[in-house]
């Protein structure tokens, strides 16, 4: 299996949304939403930005670099926030990651 659930998010993780978790712009309410089984979540602007970076290729560290440059903010603080947010999503089963095939 190339994808795994129940992940522990670290700087090296390359997370992505699994097929049952959809990030979508809700035209009626004019907000971004995350659609997941039995749940509709409303991510804030920062969360949307982070989730749009979750393509299974970028690492969490890459994301922190990018956001730190964009907002001219301390990288370590951003990294901690991004990891906490993604770990919460992962614990809910709404995030997966790409791993190297080991066999």
């Amino acid at each position, binding site marked *: 299996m190339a994808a795994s*659930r*129940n992940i522990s998010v670290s700087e090296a993780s390359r997370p992505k949304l*699994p*097929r*049952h978790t*959809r990030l*979508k712009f*809700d*035209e*009626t*309410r004019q*907000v971004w*939403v*995350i*659609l997941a*089984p*039995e*749940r*509709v*979540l*409303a*991510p*804030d602007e*920062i*969360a949307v930005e*982070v989730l749009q970076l979750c393509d299974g290729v970028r690492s969490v560290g890459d994301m922190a670099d990018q956001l730190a440059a964009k907002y001219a903010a301390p990288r370590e603080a951003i990294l901690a*926030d991004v990891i*906490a*947010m993604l770990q*919460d*999503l*992962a*614990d*809910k*089963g709404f995030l997966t990651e790409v791993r190297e095939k080991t066999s």
Partner: protein
Amino acid sequence: MSDILAGSKTTGAAPSDGLAVLESQRSTAETFGIPLAVLAELTHRCPLQCPYCSNPIELDRGGSELTTEEWKKVLSELAEIGVLQIHFSGGEPTARKDLVELVQHATDVGLYSNLITSAVLLTKERLSALADAGLCHVQISFQGNEPMVADRVAGLKNAHEKKIEAAKWTRELDLPLTVNAVMHRQNLHQLSDIIQMAVDLDADRLEVANVQYYGWALKNRAALMPTIEQIEETSRIVEEAAVRLKGILAIDYVVPDYYALRPKKCMGGWGRQFFNISPAGKVLPCHAAESITGLEFESVRSNHSIAWIWQNSEAFNRYRGTGWMPEPCKSCEFREIDFGGCRCQAFALTGDAGNTDPACTLSPMHEKIFKDAEREAAAHQDRFLYRNFAGGTLETEGEHGA
């Protein structure tokens, strides 16, 4: 099934994680905004005969069901007015020959689709076709953790074995799986094993739903009502498992009304955040609403739009908000927390849907229903009345729903 997207289930995200629940930001109470999720009961036909079925006693016949084209029109309209998720339910939704076509249509119009199924009619090919059509999530009901109890409750031989098989196909197809376990006196002893079964099946979620007593379940209340000891044990098991399985299996727990002190916020409040479309096309505030006599429900076959029915129809407005409430609800500090509980239960137990739900300790009926529950649970009348189109069939010594 339990309240979909109700407050209790959607408040899990901590504010600090950058995620907040949409409903907590934008209350639908003042605006009657269009619900995020809608339940489409495609048919009342079902190979199972569960004695707690949430369908009404008066089942819609096959001939009255909306056609494929009518359902497609409904799905398009729902997406257009802002519904985000569609739950295909029944009866047994896979009994509809056009299910793959309907799921494909839901996908085409941008709806996130969920299948709520008994799974006994599924083949791997059909499930695979549903996945290809864009199905996002599968919920399979289980009646126990092994065939002896499970097949008896379902009233169908080999049902359990077929469910296990379908659950494995679901995960092989990489679809997320929720196990729905409806619990009552005659299967609560299996709860720990059912939790382990859900883990072994690689489910993401488990709904532990105590039976809600209206319709068929009310007729079977004496055979289903748990004892207070069972409920205490259940809460202990669920709490322990929720901690132990964090990140592995999410558990949603629906507590039984009869032993509650406060009523549940049924459907998130009448006409606040949910509606249901019946097989014949009636737009209902909840799947049991037709059990309330004297309420007229509008149909998608009428010349009204679904949005008009939601906002303006008499049935939705009758018990919407807090203006309809009598005492003790009217002056109660919890009136906007539980919205007076469940209208169907108030009707079933008091004869008036406008009364306070007897699950509430402030209802004058509360003590009586609590005593009824205790007495019925202790009497061990275990015989089921199986659900079917003939008005129900009593279980006999040799025949379990056959």
